[in-house]
């Protein structure tokens, strides 16, 4: 009986362009994308940290790299990804302890995550990169 129930044809809609993701869903996929991006950039970040601590000349070199317009754009995006992952992660930790699991609360908290993470990105980005 149980097998019959599982084998029953169920409607499936995985046509991505037709799915309109609500804000908590956008937050969720960005949490994954930002985590993956940070993982991919780990060797670059470790290399930058290593160089910046190696010698005054290498430190100046890192400053020069960070000052490059293209590097600034990448780092700005990285700061946003980090802050998004950070804020969305705190939201998930609160959901884990049953805080804000209602539909309205979940929608509101995802708006807060976007607002706070973008604000933090602008503040930190302005401080570090300019």
């Amino acid at each position, binding site marked *: 009986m149980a097998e019959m129930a599982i084998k029953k044809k169920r409607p499936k809609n995985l046509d991505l362009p037709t799915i309109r993701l609500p804000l908590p869903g956008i937050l969720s996929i960005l949490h*994954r994308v930002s*985590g*993956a991006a*940070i*993982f991919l950039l*780990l*060797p670059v970040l*470790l290399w930058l*940290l*290593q160089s*910046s*601590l*190696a*010698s*005054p000349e290498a*430190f*100046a070199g890192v400053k020069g790299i960070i000052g490059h317009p293209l590097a600034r754009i990448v780092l700005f995006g990285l700061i946003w990804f980090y802050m998004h992952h*950070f804020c969305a*992660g*705190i939201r998930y*930790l609160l959901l*884990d302890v049953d805080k804000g699991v209602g539909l309205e609360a979940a929608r509101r908290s995802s708006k807060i995550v976007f607002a706070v993470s973008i604000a933090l990105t602008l503040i*930190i980005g302005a*401080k570090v990169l300019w």
Partner: protein
Amino acid sequence: MVNRILVGAHYGLKDWIIQRATAIIMAVYTVIFLVVIAAVGPDSFDAWRGIFANGFMKFATFLFFVSVFYHAWIGIRDIWMDYIKPDALRLLMMIATAAVLVGYAGWAVQILWRM
């Protein structure tokens, strides 16, 4: 015939807890780091190096890195489990991920203690 049911026990609970524990460690470190940066304003090599020469920051930074690498292992492994269907390729991706993360941990030790 062995009829093992793969639900209901604690499969994955350890990873679930570690993912959250490392998240909290990283979140706390992020706040500490931002406060230190704001206080020191490290625009010279000596000031920047001084931050990581401090014993507590060295320890906290190392703990942060270990947390990043373990957290990344669980997260990236989940991504491979979700999207990579061929078993051999998925296993290969997992091994490669674990290998680079262990390597990064060694690299982080070298950066912090040989600076």
